[in-house]
């Protein structure tokens, strides 16, 4: 693999046949049994996927402040495998949906009460799909839309996503001129639009801000979107606890983002907001150092 290729914009790995077997096992064995049986898969990825292994290593060095041990490196990959496995049970809405606790749901309702929808800003830390459990079982109806870059989604992920017939409908695809128009219309209707804000596309606008002690490019798009639409921004996280439940939290971020002045002045304002976002991201990593799922050259250390 070339050294320049280690961005997140690459075709996803994962084998469709293996996933079909996993889906079958999930049905007959259930979540708890299966999650004890998948450690060889994590071991296989640790051994075979160089980009993921190096991305994990660079991150662990930063969050732990030292070189990680091999058991820690395996644990990091394994945490990801467990989260992928849980997708089967969250999207499949079978009997064994992972249990979860929710903190701060009132933050979303307060944001929605302004009538401008709500942008939920998350990160590739923990589970994104756990959000769907909240949407599905919330006391009041929340319409959830998910903004995603889907070009490189692999066959294995698609096999999981087909479990939930609503999954595809909730997605707003990134990469079309009318993408953000679509998002603005959803917000205008009072929908919640979830965005993971920690991966900067190679061509898009970004700002470099410190994450775990070193500058990394973060996209300014979600915050520009909030400024244009007037939508409040709420932070979202779902970390997997040791007992297999999810700790879902909503935290206030911005009631309103105002952008004024020239492009340069606006860029400074956006950067200041991203510094706050990065501080939140760091807190998540401190709470659980093994739930960071940006398995690529996040800090651009190799290019």
């Amino acid at each position, binding site marked *: 693999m070339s050294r320049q290729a280690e961005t997140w914009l690459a075709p996803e790995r994962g084998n469709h046949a293996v996933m079909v077997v996993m889906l079958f096992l999930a049905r007959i064995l259930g979540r708890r049994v299966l999650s004890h049986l998948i450690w060889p898969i994590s071991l296989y990825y640790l051994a075979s996927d160089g980009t993921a292994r190096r991305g994990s290593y660079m991150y662990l060095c930063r969050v732990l402040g030292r070189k990680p041990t091999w058991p820690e490196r395996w644990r990091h990959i394994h945490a990801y495998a467990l989260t992928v496995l849980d997708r089967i049970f969250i999207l499949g809405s079978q009997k064994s949906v992972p249990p979860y606790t929710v903190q701060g749901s009132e933050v979303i309702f307060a944001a929605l009460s302004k009538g401008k929808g709500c942008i939920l800003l998350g990160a590739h830390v923990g589970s994104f799909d756990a959000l769907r459990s909240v949407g599905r079982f919330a006391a009041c109806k929340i319409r959830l839309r998910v903004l995603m870059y889907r070009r490189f989604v692999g066959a294995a992920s698609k096999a999981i996503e087909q479990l939930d017939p609503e999954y595809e409908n909730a997605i707003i695809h990134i*990469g079309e*001129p009318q*993408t953000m*128009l679509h998002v603005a219309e959803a917000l205008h209707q009072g929908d919640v639009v979830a965005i993971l804000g920690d991966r900067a596309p190679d061509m898009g606008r970004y700002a470099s801000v410190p994450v775990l002690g070193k500058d990394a490019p973060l996209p300014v798009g979600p915050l520009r979107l909030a400024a*244009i639409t007037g939508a409040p921004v709420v932070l979202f996280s779902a970390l997997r606890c040791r007992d297999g439940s999810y700790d879902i939290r909503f935290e206030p971020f911005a009631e309103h983002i105002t952008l004024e002045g*020239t492009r340069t002045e606006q860029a400074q304002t956006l950067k200041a907001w991203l510094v706050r976002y990065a501080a939140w991201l760091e807190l998540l990593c401190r709470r659980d150092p093994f739930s960071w799922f940006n398995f690529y050259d996040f800090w651009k250390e190799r290019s």
Partner: protein
Amino acid sequence: MNTQSFVSLQTPFEHEVAERLVEALQLEVTADEISPEAPLFGDGLGLDSIDALEIVLMIGRDYGVTLRSDDPNSREIFSSLRTLCAYVAAHRQPS
């Protein structure tokens, strides 16, 4: 920096819309420098889909023209200043 002027290629209406684009998007080019047939997105003016949203809000506010995300022609409408202006001219409300 290429500061070629395209003003002679612009119709008066295209020049007016170009000025409003520069203002709304805080572009670091002047209205004269926007070639009417160059792509607005990607390699041309380098706009992205959030800029497209700003453009939609601008044409709604200034010309009373609405454009929805499910419009099958939206890709074509956004392809250049000229196609955008043609759309606005055809759909603007008399004020």
